[in-house]
């Protein structure tokens, strides 16, 4: 099986393979251009006759459950990342596979974290063939250096759901770590020692996998309520002593930034939104989890409080700051995809105005609409942006793959997408002639806010008009770029080989860009 083959130039001018891990792939055609035909994938029909009538699906060990679920060479195993860096389950699966001598698995996580670094040894010894999902930190480095056997595939949260739904990816076994579950397999993330909030990232896995294993360390008698995952999807339930490290799941380390430079970015971003008329009674916004994004929330709060306005809803990642806004009445609803601290978990559990969402409700592009396009203000980050406003979130300027896409691509469909980013990090200019990897097409990115000026996408003539007499330093993206290069010097480009090591998929499953092997 060829890792990649038949490269062609796609609609945004990037050379991408049309064969990926032996399967055909569609090159990116433009925003909203690719309209697939046919039907969604469907899981096998099952019969209650094959499941215990007393509802007890508990199996004594994970190994036994995996074997019963059909663990074998070459299959796809999925996990979710609601436990972030406190996940104790994903590596155990591959420990078992390794012990059994199983080879060529595909790991399909919704995201990976530093705690998953042990997977590199299984990538090296062939237990795992490749990762499709996200390759962060050490796993990204491993991929960039061309050491992964198969081709890595990076997808957004919405793209992950879309790939499963469309049948691009077939999950053989889904292992869903659940902070609380009953013996039937109903599960939630809001209770238990490993409480993480929602379980939405595991929805596609529950719905479409051949076999679904719930792993919990907090088994309760039926019914487990709320049942964010229905037991009706579940084959087996496994009880472990501990499935996650609480302090790493809800780290609580995401605090308002104290960096004066970042606070300035936050202040200017909020001011921009206000002057451009994006904030109004009943508006909506996406709150990121980074320190800068959190601080923007604080500035939004001041504006809302002063004018006695409310946001109709905020899209989380939630945390204590967003919960405070909800409880103070500045925000009417939180639509939450993941929860970053215990305050967020408590609020989701106790407050009916704080609801869990899944990539289906929020992001899936092959559905009958989703709410990401209804959000007024979306605040995001990026590792690089180019003069055409294309942005990169997965590789750094040195060419290394270090991050996943997350929900980033999906939220680009919001009405105004703002990237508050420093003009340079240490000596690395953020605005380039061409980004190392395109993750988001420039036509969807509206405003870049840096500490030395704000650039508005020329396509947004409405915003340019509104900000004509602004007190904020509005500049062109070219001006910002030369300002950074005057300070830092003109950076050299990273050196790559011809070998493609991973691809970035667009939200519709088409191939947006290739990531190449770095020259070490």
């Amino acid at each position, binding site marked *: 099986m060829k890792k990649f083959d038949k490269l062609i130039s796609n609609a945004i001018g990037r050379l991408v393979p049309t064969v990926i891990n032996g399967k055909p792939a569609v090159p990116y055609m433009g925003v909203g251009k690719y309209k697939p035909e046919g039907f969604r994938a469907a899981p096998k029909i099952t019969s209650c006759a094959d499941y215990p009538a007393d509802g007890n699906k508990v199996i004594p060990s994970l190994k036994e459950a995996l074997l019963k679920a059909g663990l074998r060479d070459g299959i796809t195993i999925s996990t979710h990342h609601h436990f972030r860096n406190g996940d104790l389950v994903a590596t155990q699966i591959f420990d078992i596979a390794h012990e059994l001598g199983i080879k060529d698995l595909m790991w399909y996580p919704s995201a990976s974290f530093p705690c998953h670094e042990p997977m590199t040894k299984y990538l090296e010894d062939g237990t795992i063939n490749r990762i499709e999902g996200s390759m962060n930190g050490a796993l990204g480095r491993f991929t960039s250096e061309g050491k992964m056997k198969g081709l890595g595939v990076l997808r957004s949260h919405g793209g992950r759901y879309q790939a499963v739904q469309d049948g691009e990816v077939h999950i053989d076994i889904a292992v869903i770590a659940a902070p609380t579950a009953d013996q039937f397999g109903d599960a939630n993330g809001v209770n238990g020692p490993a409480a993480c909030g929602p379980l939405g990232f595991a929805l596609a896995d529950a719905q479409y996998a051949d076999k679904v294993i719930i792993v919990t360390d907090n088994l309760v008698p039926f019914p487990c309520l709320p049942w964010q995952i229905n037991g009706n999807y579940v084959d087996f339930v496994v009880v472990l002593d501990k499935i996650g490290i609480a302090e790493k799941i809800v780290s609580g380390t995401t605090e308002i930034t104290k960096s004066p*430079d970042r606070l300035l970015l936050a202040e200017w971003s909020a001011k921009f939104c206000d002057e451009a008329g994006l904030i109004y009674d009943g508006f909506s916004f996406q709150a990121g989890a980074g320190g800068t994004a959190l601080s923007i929330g604080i500035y939004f709060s001041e504006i809302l409080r002063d004018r006695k306005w409310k946001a109709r809803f905020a899209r989380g990642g939630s945390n204590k700051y967003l919960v405070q806004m909800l409880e103070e009445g500045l925000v009417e609803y939180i639509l939450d995809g993941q929860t970053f601290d215990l305050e967020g978990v408590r609020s989701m559990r106790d407050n009916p105005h704080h609801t869990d969402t899944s990539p289906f409700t929020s992001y899936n592009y092959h559905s009958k609409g989703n709410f990401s396009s209804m959000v007024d203000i979306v605040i995001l980050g990026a590792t690089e942006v180019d003069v055409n406003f294309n942005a990169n979130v997965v590789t750094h300027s040195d060419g290394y793959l270090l991050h996943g896409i997350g929900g980033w691509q999906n939220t680009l469909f919001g009405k105004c997408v703002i990237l508050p980013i420093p003009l340079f990090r240490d000596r*690395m200019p953020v605005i380039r002639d061409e980004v190392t990897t395109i993750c988001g097409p420039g036509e969807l990115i509206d405003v870049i806010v840096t*500490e030395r000026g704000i650039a508005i996408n020329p396509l947004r003539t409405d915003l340019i008009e509104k900000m004509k007499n602004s007190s904020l330093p509005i500049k062109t993206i070219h001006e910002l770029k030369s300002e950074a290069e005057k*300070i830092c010097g003109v*950076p050299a480009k990273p*050196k790559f080989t011809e070998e493609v090591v991973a691809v970035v998929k667009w939200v519709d499953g088409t191939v947006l860009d290739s990531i190449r092997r770095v020259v070490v």
Partner: protein
Amino acid sequence: MGTIATTGNKGKGVRSDCFVTLELTDVGGIQLQVESKVAVMYGDSIRTEMLKILDFFGVENARVKIEDSGALSLVIAARLEAAIKKLIPTEKNWLPAMLNENLYTTAKDRNRFSRLYLPGNSPSLMINAGIHKPDGIILDLEDAVAPDKKDEARFLVRNALCGIDFYGAERMVRINQGERGIEDLNYIIPYNVNLILLPKCEKPEQLQAVNDQIKKIQQKYNQTNPVWIMPIIESALGVINAYPIASFSENIVSIAIGLEDYTADLGTRRTAEGLESFFARSCVVNAARAAGIQPIDSVFSDVGDMEGLRENVLRSKALGFDGMGCIHPRQIVVIHETFAPTPDEIEKAKKIVYAFHKAQEQGLGVVALGTKMIDPPVVKRALNTINLALKMNKLNENWREFYEKI
């Protein structure tokens, strides 16, 4: 002089800086090892630049290592030059280009509400200092630099004066006390420094020495730009001599008070209420006003306490100070907002100034508001308030036209 020198900083938390190790050898040419966080983007240019500098100083045989955490080229140059000069006596200087943006001079009576202290050996804090719009930035060669780093800090501060844009902030340097401070001037005066802060000023003779040296250097470089001085009063003796200091020469634009050292000198300690320094602060204000210059208050050291800072500024303003130091960029906004005239003050001042202008136009010697006579000092204060409001964009320059219409 030895054969090995190190300069700069490295390790966890160090950003935008580098650590240079230079070992002179007898043979073998230059062996240069570049370890850089930004090697892919700048590795080649770092190497070229360093070889050029080594060549410039005539270093032919040496082992050189740079451990770089994203230092700008002017920082790398400063580190390498400092290392070379630890080992080789030379009069030559390797200077980054002086930015055109950095060639401005400042007016004697400009606003000096805020001046932001920047440790003279920490490049990461300098690069973005100007974007927070302080009235002045202080590259500090004195207390914020460890004793064994004071030599290398001079090169960094010099290069920063040439190559870092502080976006219109008054470019200040705090020199060291005594003989070292006089030597510091050699590294900064030629590079368009706007103002020198002289720490622990107790006697006018200290100012004489500074002025003499400035004059000497400026003559050598054929420069005539003004170099203002802000003496810092930090001792009991300094307080006693505040007026002779404040009125010593034309280029003294303000005097500041440093309360940590002053309270230590008194044998007491600094409190939030500041009763122990009331006398000294009042003396400084009085001396400055008598000399027609600006009195500037000490820094507020709790960077997390913005409310405390605001109260402190209000007290400062009430005592008659015209500004204060800051040690964190977030303090700048609070200081500016609080020193700025309040809307109430501006409204009152508008009434008085308007009446004053009317009276002048009508050739009247007396200013009156309704039936009330306005004393000349009140008019003067109102004029000051209006000027300040204009400078700080709190008031439209055509305010009188608008005022007429009401």
